[in-house]
């Protein structure tokens, strides 16, 4: 069928593409397959062809669109400024409307109802921690095993929602931190670091009570109604803060796009944690930590580098923490995690993950920094314990804490 929803890619979005092809080498799936329909140019051509009545939303169209990682690397290099991510979300929305399948309904349920539900996530986390402790990971089905292997060891505090932290002096402003769905339960240390660093810089940090999942994964999969609801909830939850911050790049990218989903979007500005911390270091609100801590490989999450165009921030944070950042991939190709992609297209995901891991190991660094939970899990799974994986802000917080301990113990000796 032709397009049936108001979410469909528009002529305006699509006609910005002049088929110059400069996106092709930046597209992971095109690089793997060499197929036009697995590259941004072909996908846009197919979306246009449906609009023109040449093609329909059929199985081939579904395959072509579903195979996209939505890493948006193409968008970042497009001189024609084609809004590829938006067009792809539109195409996915059409698939959702036109090709309902059991699998899609299951996804809709998970992305729209499970992720936003802290109790269900808590249950899942508990289950996962049991599997971890009993070392039963190898019994999990293939597509789930890889992300499972990428998890940090679970335990300790289960949710950061509702928490508040105050700086030593009068706060310079209030930050609302997005706890995130899995981020909240599985990446506690990153939240601790983010809260620690931001309070050290003089902010009051709250994790607003009424918040929910950001909705990025639902949006990417084309579940637009759910996406809108989640956006609305969060907008209200974060009504009273000066800045909205997320330490999961994939979430931040979507939060920055809220004005597309709810009228007016957030009242406050949205910042990725890396972006804000780098700024605070730049303006002197946070110190450059003395000492040298060796090398760190920098992995650029797609939704940080391509979607938000943030590249220098993680590097300058790591430099300020005393690390020497190492580049691993000039093209910054996707690591293959890509939200639920690793579960839907395990082969492609594995291939990209292995490629990324070998680039990381090739750098010789003992630790790799990644600012997105999905990427972190993918890296950890493919690095198989060979080197450590951490969030840049986490590394900075550790360095800062160590140096404070040093200073206090030294001053104590005096």
């Amino acid at each position, binding site marked *: 069928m032709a397009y049936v929803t108001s979410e469909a890619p528009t002529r305006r979005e699509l*006609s*910005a*593409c*002049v*088929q*110059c*092809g*400069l*996106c*092709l*080498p930046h597209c992971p799936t095109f690089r793997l397959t*060499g*197929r*036009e*329909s697995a590259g941004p*140019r*072909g996908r846009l*051509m*197919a979306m246009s*062809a449906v609009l023109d009545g*040449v*093609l329909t939303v059929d199985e*081939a*169209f579904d395959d*072509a669109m579903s195979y996209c990682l939505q890493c948006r690397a193409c968008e970042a*290099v*497009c*001189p*024609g*400024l*084609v809004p590829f991510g938006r067009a792809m979300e539109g195409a996915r929305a059409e698939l959702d409307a036109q090709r309902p399948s059991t699998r899609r309904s299951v996804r809709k349920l998970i992305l729209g109802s499970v992720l936003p539900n802290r109790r269900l996530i808590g249950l899942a986390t508990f289950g996962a921690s049991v599997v971890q402790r009993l070392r039963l990971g190898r019994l999990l089905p293939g597509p789930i095993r890889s992300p499972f292997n990428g998890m940090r060891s679970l335990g300790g505090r289960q949710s950061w929602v509702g928490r508040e932290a105050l700086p030593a002096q009068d706060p310079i402003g209030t930050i609302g931190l997005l706890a995130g769905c899995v981020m909240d339960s599985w990446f506690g240390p990153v939240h601790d670091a983010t809260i620690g660093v931001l309070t050290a810089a003089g902010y009051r940090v709250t994790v607003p009570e009424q918040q929910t999942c950001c909705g990025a994964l639902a949006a990417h999969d084309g579940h637009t109604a759910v996406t809108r609801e989640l956006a609305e909830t969060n907008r209200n939850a974060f009504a009273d803060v000066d800045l909205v911050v997320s330490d999961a790049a994939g979430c931040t990218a979507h939060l920055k796009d809220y004005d597309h989903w709810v009228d007016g979007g957030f009242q406050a500005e949205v910042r990725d944690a890396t972006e804000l911390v780098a700024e605070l270091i730049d303006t002197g609100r946070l110190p450059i930590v003395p000492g040298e801590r060796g090398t760190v490989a920098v992995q650029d999450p797609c939704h940080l580098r391509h979607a938000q165009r943030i590249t220098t921030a993680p590097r300058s944070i790591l430099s300020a923490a005393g690390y020497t950042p190492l580049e691993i991939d*000039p093209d910054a190709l996707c690591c293959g995690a890509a939200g639920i992609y690793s579960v839907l297209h395990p082969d492609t995901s594995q291939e990209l993950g292995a490629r990324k891991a070998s680039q990381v190991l090739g750098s010789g660094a003992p630790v790799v920094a990644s600012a997105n939970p999905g990427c972190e899990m993918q890296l950890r799974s493919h690095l198989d314990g060979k080197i450590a994986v951490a969030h840049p802000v986490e590394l900075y917080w550790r360095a800062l804490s160590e140096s404070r301990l040093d200073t206090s113990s030294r001053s104590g000796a005096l």
Partner: protein
Amino acid sequence: MSLVSDLIAVLGRDRVLDDRLDSWTYGKDAGVFRGEADVVVLPESTEEVAEIVRVAERHSTSIVPRGAGTGLAGGAVPVDRNVIVSMIRMNEITDVDPENRTAWVGPGVVNLDLSRHTEVHGLHFAPDPSSQSACTIGGNVGNNSGGPHCLAEGTTVNHVLAVEVVLAGGEVVTVGGGAPDPIGLDLRGILVGSEGTLGIVTKVLVKLTPNAPDVRTLLCAFDSVEDAARAVSGIIAAGVVPAALELMDQRMTEAVENWLKAGLPTDAAAILLAEVSGGTAAVKAEAAVIREVATSSGASSVSLAADEAERQILWKARKSAFGAVAQTAPDYYLHDTTVPRTRLVEAMTEAYAIGDKYDLVMMNVFHAGDGNLHPLMTFDASQPGSFERVRAAADEIVEMCVSKGGVLSGEHGIGKEKRDLMGLMFDAPALDAQARIKEAFDPGGLFNPHKILPQGSRCFDFGRTVPVPDGAWI
């Protein structure tokens, strides 16, 4: 057995694409023409290509080879319902030989990847089309591609020492070689630039060029395009052949700046990008000459890229120009002609006049150093008659350039786009000779039909002793 099942027998199911969506997405390159393929195949070895050729011959189906599809003349666009042979998966770089400065590469290797790959040896592949981050070596060979730096280094053919090619009948031969002046006719030279009409190149021995010890890039701003073009002639006349000499007019600068925020002077009517490379002393002396000539030609400012990062961003600005135009209108038509350098100013002036006459927005960004113009007209194809208007203006520009001693194409090729204009440049015996070359290679008309040569080029009844009257083909 059907064509598709025969192809599947050679390649397996995954590398034979026959869905409508695939046919459609392979129906276009970066130019304005569209066709639709019958079936698309993605071979991974020379043997597979040879087998594809034999299958196609058996089914009397023609073949269109394709690289990254970044060409602009429709060379890779199917015209009949052809088999598209995408060479993109044959992308291995083997036998890099830093001593002899050569490498064997698959046709699917991306141009920029090759230079990145050989950087450890201080070497690069000199042809650098603006699409170099995406286009393939096979495509470069097919079109004899140029780029800004072929002013000093020459086009692709100067950097290809040998090619392995699958000919009609599936015969595989390697022509040329790593030693200078191979004996016999230069089949390599004729294959490069033949746009896939003579055979399918499956492997290329490229010549690599040492990276220059020093490079300087100057950005000169002018109050008029004419002044900038005069500076170009002046620089050459002063005895300097820069590595590159590129001109961009104001509209183009604005479009690029809007995307890249490179700090380009958008108030200048034209900017000239001049690069010199070589030994430090040479580079310093030549940069001084360029500065002097630019200033005396009326440059309002001349600035030198302070470091490699600044230089890279200037080149990114230049090389993304065409894509950036997409922001200004839904469609564009990019032209490619060369005129003798001394006639650049008049050709530019007349090109703008033709644009005005047809009420079209014209922009220019081009390789001024070798007189290679790229007038670009934006339009909206959904407006009835707009494409026809653009084509008419384009044809008039070509005619104008040829009348000044210029040519149909400087680097993009003839393809589907300009085959009917070949008569402007070549007389009947010349076209006939070209058609005979095609016939000698491809008697069955298997490879990329309806490209380069206009219908009826081969003058079978062209009597051996009867001269053809002047203008018979014009």
